[in-house]
């Protein structure tokens, strides 16, 4: 199961830009939560935890949801995802 490694490296300390670089599909998660992070100039400096706090979202929920999207993506689309993510 290659996705489990990829998934576990996503934490509240991952920056928004890192996450979106590796998993562009996660953009939808931010948009649904009305978070303006995708495309934001600050995304390289803001961690998922900080972004969640800025929008009054529970960081745990956000990370869990993002892990779900990444898990789905790595198992279906991109076999290299695991190695790219683990270099974060």
């Amino acid at each position, binding site marked *: 199961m290659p996705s489990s490694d990829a998934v576990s490296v996503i934490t509240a300390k991952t920056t928004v830009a890192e996450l979106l670089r590796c998993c562009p599909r996660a953009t939808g998660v931010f948009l649904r939560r*009305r978070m*303006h992070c995708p495309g*934001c*100039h*600050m995304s*390289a*400096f*803001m961690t998922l935890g*900080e*972004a969640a*706090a*800025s*929008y*009054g979202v529970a960081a745990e929920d956000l990370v869990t949801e993002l892990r779900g999207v990444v898990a789905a993506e790595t198992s279906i689309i991109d076999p290299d995802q695991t190695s790219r993510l683990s270099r974060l």
Partner: protein
Amino acid sequence: MTATRTLDPTLLDAVDVFAGLEGKARERALAAAQWIKLAPGQQAFRQDEEAEAFYVLSVGRLKVSQLTPEGQEVIIRYIGPKEMFGCIAVCGGLTYPGTATAVVDSWALAWSRRSIGELAQDYPKIALNAMRTMGGRMKDTHARLREMQTERVERRIAHAIARLVAQAGRRVENGILIDFPVSRQDIAEMTGTTLHTVSRTLSAWQERGVVELGRQKLTVVDPHGLVIIAEDLPADDSDR
């Protein structure tokens, strides 16, 4: 739209345009008026129509709106009881600047352009009063214009700083430092504004805890706060 309704004689007392008129003048004004009833969604007049009547709202609420060339509706103001609308008819020969639509069941007194014109000729106070009201609304409009201009400058400055952050930001303990010497003059030149405006804006942001200023040094302490200003995002979805 024409209907009858018992007139509350105190209505005209409360309306600025008839302020200071003696009894006889007031009687004439009342005699020339007609009641109109507007159901929600019904329009008293439309934008760009010749201004044929002048109104005073008795009960209810109306919105005055304009359509953009793209067809988007922009609400200019709401009219409440005892307020005038369609004042431009007092001047004669002009068109309505917006569309007046009832938002709830409303009753208004209407004067035709001709009758209000005649009244204004006989009682110049009416024209002066109407001018005063229009002047007051013009003042509101100017204030709003000024606010919008200021907002635009603020947003430009916030955008410029956000771009600098993206290009040369470095994470430091208290935020994101723009990692090269950047002066207020530089930011003024980036945004096409004055040094004075940049200084004033940055000082205000420092007080609000958005940035921290040093000599040729700028740290964004609240990156999300800066983005809220730059993108004009609603601030209330933040829990801070």
